[in-house]
């Protein structure tokens, strides 16, 4: 009850605070800013030695003050020495840091690394610290267990360092991406990083697939040599002579492969476990990566949405930009964004009428319905097309061409259509990304289902593999030749001065190409192991072509692109497509298996490779019943319920914490006002202007007011000279004139100069304070 009243009261206060115009509030609080800062530095919160943040800030405060001294002080090195002493003393307050064991040494090293000081200062501090540590160490023998632990820790650290070194020397495409970043800013750079990441991932996949699946099959094939004839068209369609080749699922052997040695290699096991392990492993990696990125860019920064202006001001400039042109564009776009934000803000005051809002809402819904209809319609058309019994000879190729055309053109339509809607720019990007992804994943699922259902008697796996192969091949033609050519010609037209606008590097569309390829790869890898190689090579080529395209033909985007969150969304889509693949393949594997071809033709279902081949459940009824129990819907339902409860609980907690944050913010504001009030009161008291006399027993030797008065105000305090006039002078110089005037007329100027002055008062003063309190 009490609490409720309190908070209600606080709310009133807040309202009172917030209804006052900001400018007047500020001009009040800005009064005597400089002199006040000195007093504020004496507050207990500023003097906690164990507060790391303060530790670091204190140092830089001293630094700032020392900087001023340095100009007219001859013995600057002496100051540096003193500063190092301060840092060491404050670090000595951390018990854990000062112990004499390797772990503490590592901690010390990290603490040193994080010091916001120059290398010389760090070195200085390190020397002093190690002297202090060896002075303190008691020379206790370390137990065997601890020694082992440290040794392991060191070994691990050394390995990690060496790994980093190796990665740095192997980091491919470092210079090209850096150059692109210099030209276009970090957003386009992040597209290339995404491309590089996918390339590295596929390269890894390639190595594993080739090593465990393809090479054994080659060894097997060597034994029975047969030659097939292939035409050029077969390479494009993947049919004819290529059907029964290493490229596709159907070719793989279904029994043991025994070469001349005694060892046997069971091909079905190898095929199954390589694929499943790769899928699951990469699913894990992708999930982790996406979750990490999501946490970093969405959850941990979720409170930052309100800092629109501050973000623009402090994070607006892209420090990686190199060329004049890019810098100019960056500056211009910042200008435009400031303008936009300001106009948006003034517009916010005029509330939008509900009719308008309703209109926008209806438009959004209508367009979404249209897009969904378009997607469903094209899927339906595709289904009909697939089922059409055509007299054409290369009908399959025709279907693939149509598919590629649809998948290239629809995203463009989505990009245009989304402009009709009323979304924020970032949301509209996500919306069109999601739509495109829906189309791609839907198409591939449809193909999978079509081949599995309609051609179950023949080798449908190979047919699907061929389909995927054709899609990758045709998309290569589009994304490696047609689109770059288009971009180049647009760039040329621009350079000849025939067109006003140069082509911009379209990150969204280009990223979609990558996601599309990766999705096809996820779907097709199971049925066409060598597809991995094709996609990897394609990404390799794509990198160089896109690089040339970007550097030669494109212009930096006129709008600043916020890369961090978009990147997360891209990762999310890649993960999502892998999940869809796993879902599709999993449900198919529990249903069918080709008896006509492939490594699993000996089993009734594909999953029998595990249940019959490895575990041999037929002979172990107990294990079988346990397994059957676990996959019952009841158990899984229970698990789901449990997860739901957990999520609900966490959500409730996060909401509670958000409320707490709001309350703490208000309290902070009120505290600051209290501080303001008290400081004014102190100033008044010190000048004898206070009408009511404060109770003297309130100010015991322990109170901070007392200390403040003793140390700041008493002119005879040795070791601490408070030179207000000089201080306010030096601190105020950078401020607008109005503040200077105000400060000049303040009471600090009226004080007589007390002769010999020492501007390094702050740290001396705080030393004094620290020593005394100890």
């Amino acid at each position: 009850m009490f609490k409720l009243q309190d908070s209600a009261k606080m709310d009133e206060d807040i309202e009172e605070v917030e209804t006052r115009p900001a400018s007047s509030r500020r001009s009040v609080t800005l009064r005597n800013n400089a002199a006040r800062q000195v007093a504020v530095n004496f507050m207990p919160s500023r003097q906690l030695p164990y507060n790391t943040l303060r530790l670091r800030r204190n140092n830089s405060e001293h630094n700032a003050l020392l900087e001023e001294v340095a100009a007219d002080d001859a013995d600057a090195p002496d100051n540096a020495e003193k500063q190092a002493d301060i840092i060491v003393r404050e670090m000595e307050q951390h018990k854990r840091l000062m112990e004499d064991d390797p772990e503490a040494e590592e901690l010390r090293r990290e603490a040193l690394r994080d010091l916001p000081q120059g290398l010389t200062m760090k070195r200085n501090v390190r020397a002093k610290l190690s002297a202090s540590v060896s002075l303190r160490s008691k020379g206790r023998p370390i137990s065997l267990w601890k020694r082992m632990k440290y040794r392991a820790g060191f070994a691990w650290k050394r390995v990690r360092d060496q790994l980093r070194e190796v990665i740095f020397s192997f980091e491919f495409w470092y210079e090209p991406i850096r150059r692109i970043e210099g030209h276009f800013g970090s957003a386009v750079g992040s597209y290339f990083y995404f491309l590089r990441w996918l390339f590295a991932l596929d390269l890894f996949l390639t190595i594993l697939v080739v090593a465990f699946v393809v090479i054994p099959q080659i060894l097997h094939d060597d034994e029975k040599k047969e030659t097939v004839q292939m035409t050029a068209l077969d390479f494009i369609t993947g049919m004819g002579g290529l059907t029964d080749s290493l490229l596709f699922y159907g070719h793989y052997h279904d029994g043991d492969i025994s070469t001349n040695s005694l060892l046997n290699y069971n091909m079905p096991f190898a095929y199954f476990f390589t694929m499943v392990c790769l899928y699951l492993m990469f699913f894990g990696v992708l999930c982790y990566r996406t979750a990490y990125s999501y946490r970093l860019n969405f959850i941990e920064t979720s409170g930052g949405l309100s800092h629109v202006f501050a973000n623009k001001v402090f994070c607006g400039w892209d420090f990686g930009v190199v060329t004049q042109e890019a810098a100019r564009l960056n500056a211009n776009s910042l200008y435009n964004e400031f303008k936009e934000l300001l106009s948006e803000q003034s517009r916010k005051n005029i509330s939008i009428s509900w009719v308008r809002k309703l209109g926008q809402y209806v438009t959004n819904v209508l367009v979404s319905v249209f897009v969904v209809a378009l997607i469903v319609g094209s899927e339906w058309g595709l289904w009909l097309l697939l089922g059409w019994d055509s007299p054409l000879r290369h009908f399959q190729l025709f279907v693939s061409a149509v598919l590629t055309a649809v998948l290239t053109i629809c995203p463009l339509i989505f990009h245009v259509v989304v402009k009709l809607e009323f979304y924020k720019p970032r949301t509209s990007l996500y919306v069109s990304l999601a739509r495109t992804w829906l189309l791609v994943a839907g198409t591939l699922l449809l193909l999978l289902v079509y081949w599995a259902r309609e051609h179950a008697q023949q080798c449908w796996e190979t047919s699907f593999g061929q389909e995927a192969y054709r899609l990758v091949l045709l998309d290569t033609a589009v994304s490696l030749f047609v689109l770059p050519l288009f971009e180049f010609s647009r760039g040329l037209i621009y350079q000849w001065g025939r067109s006003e606008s140069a082509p911009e590097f379209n990150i969204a569309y280009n990223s979609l190409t990558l996601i599309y390829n990766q999705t096809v790869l996820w779907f097709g890898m199971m049925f066409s192991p060598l597809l991995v190689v094709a996609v990897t090579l394609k990404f390799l080529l794509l990198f160089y072509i896109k690089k040339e395209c970007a550097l030669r033909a494109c212009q930096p985007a006129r709008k600043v692109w916020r890369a961090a969150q978009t990147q997360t969304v891209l990762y999310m889509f890649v993960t999502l497509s892998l999940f869809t693949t796993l879902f599709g393949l999993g449900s198919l594997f529990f249903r069918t298996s080709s008896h006509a071809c492939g490594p699993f033709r000996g089993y009734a279902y594909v999953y029998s490779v595990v249940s019959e081949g490895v575990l041999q459940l037929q002979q172990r009824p107990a294990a079988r019943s346990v397994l059957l129990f676990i996959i019952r819907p009841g158990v899984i339902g229970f698990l789901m319920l449990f997860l739901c409860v957990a999520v609900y609980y966490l959500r409730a907690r996060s909401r509670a914490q958000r409320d707490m944050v709001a309350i703490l913010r208000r309290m902070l504001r009120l505290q600051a006002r209290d501080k303001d009030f008290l400081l004014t009161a102190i100033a008044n008291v010190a000048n004898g202007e206070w009408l009511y006399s404060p109770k003297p027993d309130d100010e015991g030797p322990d109170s901070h007011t007392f200390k403040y008065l003793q140390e700041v105000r008493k002119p005879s305090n040795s070791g601490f000279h408070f030179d207000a006039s000089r201080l306010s002078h030096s601190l105020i110089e950078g401020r607008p004139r109005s503040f200077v005037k105000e400060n000049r007329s303040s009471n600090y100027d009226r004080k007589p100069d007390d002769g010999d002055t020492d501007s390094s008062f702050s740290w001396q003063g705080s030393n004094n304070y620290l020593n005394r309190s100890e």
Partner: protein
Amino acid sequence: MGQGKSQFTEEELQDYEDLTYFTKKEVLYAHKKFKALAPEKVGHNKNAKLPMAKILQYPELRVNPFRDRICKVFSSSNDGDCTFEDFLDMMSVFSENAPKAVKAEHAFRIFDFDGDDMIGVSDLREVVERLCSPELKLSDFDIQQVVQNVLEEADLDDDGALSFAEFEHIIDKSSDFCHAFRIRL
């Protein structure tokens, strides 16, 4: 460039590795870049002090609106002239491995033009003015508005200036800061 390695002993490299966010290889790479700014001088003395004008030849710094501030903040003699160690320090803070807190610390000092350990109204004005290009200048009123808004959003304790804690709070909540405040070696 081949003799880049011979200019440092193993201990020196280890020392740099301990005190910065770089590996030994990266330190050497940084030195190569530093040397490219003034080949003769640095070839003579590996830790030569280069004047600010020379340091500003570095591509990323050349176009940066805060270039002089960056040099001043990292210069050990506080006048903008940088030795190799200062340069290494700078690159280490701007590198990808530097934690957000360290970056925020230096960003704060860069934006704190008058050195009073607060980002006040005048500092904010200066930042906004420098951000926009010379050809498209924001009007005085607009800058005033932007500054007002920044303070409104971020100045939690209402004292008309951003303290480091408040600044760090903004940075902490910004997903783009680490992307933006980065110079690749």
